[in-house]
């Protein structure tokens, strides 16, 4: 994709044409009989202090993107640059110093904490690993981190099972912060939490962003959450990004039919307002045999013959607004869909019924 061809200064993270294919093995000799195209050519950048929201339905590969960037999974192809340094082809040992720059918060606050380590040890471990602090100093720093994420110093001696879900996620955040990273990848960090606790954790993350100038890659399936925290949003469908733009234009004028359908599913908190729902028919096609041409053509309400054979390239329809759809031409953001399908924008587009 054009916008990410060469490493530019100023971007903290630059992902170019990232691919992750999982082989499917069968039989006694573990012959490779096919691939799951979990992530199939994803490119984006994240600036300093910026939050990029990555949304999509389950199984579209958004978590795999996060893990491939972190090198918890080895990417099949593509490049990842962190601070201008190419990290995608480093081995685990060479990768280790770069892990300090980039941390992760996991979805499940229960299984992402070792049940046999105390909370203080969990948060202190990254500092031990990088030789940042030992003994009393480590304890003091852990205490400060606990205070930062809204936990009390007495909690340091407790074990994960003694905490609530929200508190455990705070522990996860404290652990990620312990090495002063510049990028935090949140792999659905709030989707396992109650709504009231979600808000607390998100606000905490936003406060920490301001304080430490953190960048986030915020992976989620909840559009309301993404709208709240993100500066820019990328929408993924079946291993590819279909639309990427700043938060405002995405929610006001989505250009891709899939984004439009997603947004129409967000409930409006008013009994009088109703929006026309775009109900997609059928299931997401299997990522083992993705459909030819545009991957969305099997479910797209505006499908044309052309869509079934040619894969739409990423086009910049408005400054900073990228869409992969044959209906859109470069430089011409069209609001036609929004007009005849009724607007699906959450902020402005709710129509009275």
């Amino acid at each position, binding site marked *: 994709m054009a916008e990410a061809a060469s490493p530019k200064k100023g971007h903290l993270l630059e992902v170019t044409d990232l691919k992750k294919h999982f082989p499917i093995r069968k039989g006694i000799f573990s012959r490779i009989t096919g691939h799951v195209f979990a992530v199939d050519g994803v490119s984006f950048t994240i600036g300093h202090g910026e939050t990029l929201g990555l949304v999509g339905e389950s199984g579209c590969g958004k978590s795999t993107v996060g893990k491939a960037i972190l090198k918890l999974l080895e990417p099949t192809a593509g490049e990842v640059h962190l601070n201008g340094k190419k990290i995608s082809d480093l081995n685990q040992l060479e990768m280790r110093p770069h892990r300090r720059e980039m941390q992760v918060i996991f979805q499940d606050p229960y*299984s992402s*904490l070792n049940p046999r380590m105390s909370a203080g040890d969990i948060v202190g471990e990254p500092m031990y*690993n990088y030789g940042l602090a030992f003994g009393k100093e480590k304890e003091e720093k852990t205490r400060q981190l606990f205070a930062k994420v809204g936990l009390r110093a007495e909690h340091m001696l407790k074990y994960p099972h003694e905490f609530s879900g929200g508190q455990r996620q705070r522990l996860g955040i404290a652990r990620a912060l312990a090495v002063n990273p510049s990028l935090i990848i949140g792999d659905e960090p709030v989707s396992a939490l109650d709504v009231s606790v979600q808000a607390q954790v998100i606000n905490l993350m936003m406060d920490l962003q301001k304080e430490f100038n953190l960048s986030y890659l915020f992976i989620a399936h909840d559009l309301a959450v993404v709208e709240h925290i993100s500066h820019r949003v990328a929408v993924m469908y079946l291993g590819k990004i279909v639309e990427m733009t700043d938060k405002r234009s995405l929610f006001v004028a989505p250009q891709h039919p899939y984004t439009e359908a997603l947004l129409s599913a967000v409930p409006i908190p008013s009994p009088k307002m109703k929006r026309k729902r775009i109900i997609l028919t059928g299931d997401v096609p299997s990522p083992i045999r993705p459909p030819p041409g545009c991957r969305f053509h099997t479910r797209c309400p505006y499908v044309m013959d052309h869509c079934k054979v040619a894969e739409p390239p990423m086009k910049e329809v408005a400054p900073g607004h990228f869409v992969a759809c044959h209906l859109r031409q470069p430089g011409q953001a069209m609001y036609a869909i929004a007009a005849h399908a009724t607007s699906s924008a959450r902020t402005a587009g709710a129509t009275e019924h």
Partner: protein
Amino acid sequence: MTATTPAAVIDIIEPPKPIGQQIVEFCRRNTTVVFGSILLLSMVIIAIFAPFFAPGDPLALAPARRLRPPSETYWFGTDMFGRDVFTRTIYGTRISLIVGISVSFLSTLIGLVIGMLSGYVRMVDAIVMRIMDGLMAIPGILLAIAMMALTKASVENVVIAITIPEIPRVVRLVRGVVLQIREQPYIEAAQSIGTRFHRILIKHILPNIMAPLIVQATYICAAAVLIEAGLSFLGAGTPPNIPSWGNIMAEGRTFFQIAFWIILFPGLFLSVTVLAINLLGDGLRDALDPRLARRM
């Protein structure tokens, strides 16, 4: 509960109870563990202080007093050479416990290392597991006979012969637990915070293996005591000049109809020891892993 607002999280930290009270509570809840340990502990004491309990010489022959039934002087009677069965049984405790403990210690230690590597490093796994399958196919008795034929009968050989077929069981257990744990997000989390390979194994994976491993070790111990007795009974185990329960019973076998006591008393000791170890293992399993207890 102290005054907390409904929204406030429960953060009352209970002061830890005094250790003595904790132990009393544990014992009340796990009576099998207590019963098993008391039995086993008395066996250990008997083994260590054997000369004190049985002042005589277990090898002293007295043909004039052979095949005497149990009496005040000879509590467990005498065998066909006039040796005191009581003294021999007491000394036999040593061999059984030494074999049981060393086999369970060695096989869990070796099995733990191999199992952890095989579970965590996929490259090693395929090869190691095939070797383990091969080892599992060797019967302990045959191996013991082969080793005796190659070298000479000794307690060390018995320990080795029993240990080798036990290792694959431990490897399989450990590997299974490691495979389960390595998929946990907290292992990924440990990687992402730069935890080194050996530290992940020791700090994150090992503590989760300890509970099932300890339980398995007790079962291996009980099995080893039984196998040792069996091997000695067949004449493929402890050399006959060392009194072990299996040896005593093997020698008394031919006189069973006229002198039952030669077989009865070592047999009783053997049963009680194995029972004690199994009780301890069962109790520990229930105490360490409540999920397993419910499944039984």
